[in-house]
């Protein structure tokens, strides 16, 4: 069936690596797992991690991908790589050789990005696989424990998953501990006698790690329940850098695979289908933003305007937000033909708000940034725990209202974890709104 042998893979891998080294890339060694379609679905459901804890939502994800694939709505991805050392990547046995070549070159780009970009500095790639493994083992132990069992475990996981993105979004920045904040407040008080902060307040500053805060401060959770929540928290923290750099990461990997494969001097029988596939991956999606397209085009522009060396620096220091804000200009927006749109209740239809022309491109760019990665997920923080143990949460409103149906369900989940009164504040149509 397939037009390749393992020898072919080794042959091209060596060439790819040589070119990548010449480009100045520095990546983790890569372990490629050659798997079949079923296993690929499984790998995708567990975001590529060979050792992920179990939860029914991954079963659902599997079915969803499977259905979409059967309906022809999506092709399986050509790449799946994990931020670990060594990086683990998957090659699907059914794919043709030119796809493998593209995938391998693409994976080198990702692995280089994981190793070099500063957002990933704290992701602990050497031990992440083991750490997930021990979490999975722990979860399995709880499920098998006759006094706990799957129902109770799922109850906690369901609730914790509902707020799994409610963790800090500033990787690479050491957050101050409560003691340190207290220290600072005391210094401030010495310097300014009129300054009287409430030092009894819990937490002293708004706490963005809602998961961890609940795990550590709830009065009703059992030990194993706290541990479960912290497992979810740990896994979220690991994925946050990837969510913060989706556009850059994909753009960089596409740039690299394009550069490498062009230098491989492939025979036409491999090169032509490669070009076709490459163009498919980086094509614009009508009415949506294709991160592969956006990232690739922006890196292309940067390399044209400056140099590849400049691009190497950028891939180290930026994240999506700063990347887009610093390097997008009017011409680029025009080329991409981006526009912003919203649902208008009075007209009951979706209407274009702004387009990328002289007066509109900046506003469209700003909307593009607020729709990138984690910016699509509302920020909620712990404001205070009252004297009566009421947990006060606040939604950081930025103009976009919450979906109330969803918010209410999440609220219930939070309340069940906290085990006491929970107060939640947001704005709906410019009015204060409370649960």
């Amino acid at each position, binding site marked *: 069936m397939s037009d390749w042998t393992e020898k072919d893979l080794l042959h091209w891998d060596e060439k790819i690596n040589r070119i990548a080294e010449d480009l100045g890339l520095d990546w983790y*060694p890569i372990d*490629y*797992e050659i798997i079949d379609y079923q296993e690929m*679905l499984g790998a995708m459901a567990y975001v590529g991690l060979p050792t992920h804890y*179990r939860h029914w939502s991954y079963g659902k994800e599997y079915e969803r991908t499977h259905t979409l694939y059967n309906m022809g709505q999506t092709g399986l991805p050509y790449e799946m790589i994990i931020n670990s050392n060594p990086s683990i990547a998957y090659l699907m046995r059914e794919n043709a050789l030119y796809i493998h070549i593209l995938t391998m070159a693409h994976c080198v780009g990702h692995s280089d990005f994981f190793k070099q970009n500063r957002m990933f500095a704290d992701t602990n790639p050497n031990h992440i696989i083991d750490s997930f493994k021990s979490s999975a083992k722990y979860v399995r132990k709880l499920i098998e424990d006759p006094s706990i069992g799957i129902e109770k475990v799922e109850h906690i996981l369901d609730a914790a998953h509902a707020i799994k993105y409610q963790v800090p979004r500033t990787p690479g920045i050491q957050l101050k501990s409560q003691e340190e904040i207290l220290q600072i407040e005391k210094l401030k008080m010495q310097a300014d006698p009129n300054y009287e902060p409430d030092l009894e307040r819990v937490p002293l500053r708004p706490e963005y790690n809602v998961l961890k805060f609940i795990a550590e401060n709830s009065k009703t959770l059992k030990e194993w329940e706290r541990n479960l929540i912290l497992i979810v928290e740990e896994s979220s923290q690991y994925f946050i850098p990837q969510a913060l750099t989706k556009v850059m990461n994909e753009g960089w990997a596409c740039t690299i695979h394009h550069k490498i494969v062009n230098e491989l001097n492939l025979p036409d029988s491999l090169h032509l289908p490669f070009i076709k596939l490459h163009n498919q991956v980086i094509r614009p999606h009508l009415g949506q933003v294709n991160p592969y397209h956006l990232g690739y085009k922006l890196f292309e522009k940067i390399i044209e305007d400056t140099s590849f060396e400049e691009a190497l620096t950028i891939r180290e220091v930026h994240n999506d937000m700063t990347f887009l804000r610093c390097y997008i200009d009017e011409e680029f927006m025009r080329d991409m033909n981006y*526009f912003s749109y919203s649902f208008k209740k009075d007209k009951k239809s979706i*209407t274009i708000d702004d387009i990328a022309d002289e007066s509109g491109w900046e506003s469209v760019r700003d909307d593009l940034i607020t729709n990138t990665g984690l910016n699509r997920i509302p920020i909620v923080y712990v404001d205070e725990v009252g004297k009566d143990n009421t947990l006060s949460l606040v939604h950081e409103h930025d*103009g976009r*209202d919450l979906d109330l149906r969803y918010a209410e369900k999440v609220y219930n989940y939070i309340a069940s974890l906290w085990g006491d009164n929970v107060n939640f504040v947001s704005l709906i149509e410019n009015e204060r709104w409370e649960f």
Partner: protein
Amino acid sequence: MSVFRKHKSIVDRASSDRLRHKKKIDKAIKDSIKDVIAEESIIGQNGKKKIRVPVRGLKEYRFIYGNNDQNKSVGSGGDHPLKRGQKIGKQRAGEAQGQGTGKASDQKGDEYYDVEVSLEELAEYLFNDLELPDLEKKQFRFVSHETIKRKGYRFKGIRPRLSKKETLKRKIRRQKKAEKLGSFDPEGDERFPFHKDDLKYHHIKPKIKENSSAVIFFLMDVSGSMSQDRKFLARSFFFLLYQFLNHKYDQVEVVFISHSTYADRVPEEKFFNVGTNGGTMISTSLDLELDVITKEFHPNAWNIYTFYCGDGENWSSDNEKCLDLFKEIKEVSQLTAYCEINEHYSGLADEIDKDDVFHGTPWGTFSAWKNEEMDNLWSKLNPLCDSKFKKVMIGEASHIWRAFHALFGGNKST
């Protein structure tokens, strides 16, 4: 430099999570079925009809943004010329497709699974944990009821009969042994997997349980005051009841009686399809039932169940007589149920402590009814209420199922 591994995994790692997901979907089906049980389409159907039950996919809730004007999306226009204010559709592009870009999944489209179930499966889903109460052993005729009984364990068996408890016990035993021998380190990273020899299976024996004979009386009010909606609810109730009995018991006799100012014993089809007119004399149907009991079903030999369904708008002069007759029927029956169809109930449902209503205790907390004159049949029946005489109120379709549970659920009622 890179390593290539041909992956030969024997286990499908997602399988247990998929199974778990499927179980949850099954539960969702069960829950939705309760909402569709009173749909017109299933009433009066025979067992072959398939019913489509829409089941909402399991959602994973997160905080997500809603649809206000400030929530703008951005997209690429491709080669299309664009204008401000241009209308481009009725639905957000992302939602229509129901597929997000993956990790930070924020898609909102409701996923619906349409599941087809037959009436038989429906009955299976619905009636599994319900049982006719207090079936006593009586002479002569028997209702056979085949049950399967577990008896002991065997080393061989089919997978569904695997006894998890015994298997686990054997595994633990083996594990402790291994620990003592030092061939297994409990603190280590290694798992201690199940071995083929650990498996133990339940052994089962079919057992024919001989229940006493049972006769069920269905009494329905078909007077003029039974509006279209009320009739519909009454029929739904009886229809379900009938399906339930058919599903649970191989042999039960059913007697259908419909009444207005006079009562008729009617065949099954007619019972479910008759029109309505005339006034209401509930006592006539009770009279007829007692008459039938005397002639055909002696209480010594038969378990008798009576279900009355009407709107309670009886001629007030008839109420006293009804009370006496109900008393008489209660004496000879295993269970007598009085079911009142009253749509006023649905509006007031929030006021009622539901246990109070459905378990036949006096109508205490229902303030709206307190003020009304206590002359109606519902309140007159209060003294009769106990485990053998139950009253239920049905105001809308969704109450049917609750009424059912109140009557047959016993302690298992949800």
